[in-house]
């Protein structure tokens, strides 16, 4: 018999106690990312668990502290990022989108694309929730990588804009760009699978020439996880090609996507 799936919010206590694992934990975290009430409640419950911790406090052996201090001197710290958790970036993108929709004359955003834009936000948010962005409101440790912080920074940028376009080979590409950071975050959905030894290669193309901007990771359930491209300059386009082997210095095929970054 199948276990009924519990309603996520009510798992807040079990989550605060680290008593749910795997899929349940992931599902609660996805819910948490969109539920301010849960985050508020969790905050309070964490104070209760801190009390439980203090109730069993015991001095660690001095050697443990000595070893820790010595190790810290050799351990790089994570750089500071915009403190908003990644999920909030998506809300901000939502809000930004709401601001642009009435704004006229943006060549890359004709009216019929609004729906696609909305969908793109949804799937970007899903990409984040599925762990493509390994940051969360819960300060996940150990999984955070430098690129994730850079990605979070772009997504959190006050000037972040979201662009989306069809890929001629099939599928959709979505870009969140920050002019301030001169960087963009790129993801796709529904690109055709490639034969072995061939890769999707991202490019920045423009007055400064064509620059390779990374190879797309293998898709997971049809979506590629977020990649970041930096050094975006005025007049650039984002291009996507299929290349025989990475890392390509020069493109060998016609782009299957050309997306103008000019507003």
């Amino acid at each position, binding site marked *: 018999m199948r*276990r009924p799936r*519990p309603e996520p919010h*009510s*798992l*807040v*206590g*079990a989550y*605060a*106690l*680290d*008593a*749910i*694992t795997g899929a349940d934990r992931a599902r609660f975290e996805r819910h948490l990312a969109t539920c301010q009430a849960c985050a508020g409640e969790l*905050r*309070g*419950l*964490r*104070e*209760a*668990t*801190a*009390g*439980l*911790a*203090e*109730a*069993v*406090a*015991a*001095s*660690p*052996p*001095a*050697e*443990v*502290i000595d*070893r*820790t*201090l010595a*190790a*810290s*001197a050799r*351990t*790089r*710290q*994570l*750089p*500071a*990022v915009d*403190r908003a958790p990644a999920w909030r970036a998506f809300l901000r993108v939502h809000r930004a989108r709401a601001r642009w929709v009435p704004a006229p004359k943006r060549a890359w955003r004709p009216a019929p694309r609004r729906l696609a834009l909305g969908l793109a936000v949804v799937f970007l948010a899903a990409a984040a929730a599925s762990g493509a962005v390994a940051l969360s*409101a*819960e*300060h996940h*440790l*150990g999984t*955070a990588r430098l690129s994730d912080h850079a990605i979070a920074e772009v997504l959190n940028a006050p000037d972040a804009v979201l662009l989306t376009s069809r890929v001629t080979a099939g599928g959709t590409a979505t870009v969140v760009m920050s002019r301030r950071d001169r960087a963009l975050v790129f993801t796709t959905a529904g690109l055709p699978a490639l034969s072995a030894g061939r890769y999707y290669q991202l490019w920045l193309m423009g007055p400064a020439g064509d620059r390779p901007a990374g190879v797309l990771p293998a898709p997971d359930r049809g979506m590629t996880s977020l990649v970041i491209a930096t050094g975006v300059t005025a007049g650039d386009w984002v291009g996507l090609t299929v290349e025989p082997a990475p890392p390509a210095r020069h493109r060998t095929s016609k782009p299957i996507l050309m997306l103008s970054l000019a507003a």
Partner: protein
Amino acid sequence: MREAGPRQVPGTAAGQTRHADLEALIGAVARGDQAAFEAVCARAGSAVFGVVRTVVRDPSQVEEVCQEVLLDVWRAASRFEPGKGSAMAWVTTIAHRRAVDRVRSEHRSAERQLRAASHQVAYDEVTETVETRLDRERVRRCLRSLTSLQRESVTLAYYGGYTMREIAALLAVPEGTVKTRMRDGLIRLRDCLGAR
């Protein structure tokens, strides 16, 4: 015990002061301040060590996990958000997560099932060896104000490192019941401990 950083001052405002200090110290750690990190270890190290020791048990692993947790605090200090809960909650959350991850990857089922029965005893025994803390007696009094099912659900999860599913099996009650008791128990505990 190291004499790094100021010692906590007994008295009514001590709890408040101690937590406020820890927040400021973690802010300094985020800027790479080694002395501040030493003070954080002095201030929060015993809560970390206590949680890890209680959950992990195996003495050969406790020190290693404790060190990992404190290094996490060093590495991730810039991620601490003062507006989102106390520094102690942030640190102990890291400690607990690491501790349960360790026990879950190490021992499965049999040994842990055996331990469950003796768990409450072990918890008492652990607290006897603890250094004097202002909060300890209050927490224990608050724990006693929970219903027995709330208390068992909360302590088996927090101190025993058991999952909701395991606790439901151990206590022979539905998972949904354990889930509800955990939440209600923590809410009651939070309210009993009061704003800090």
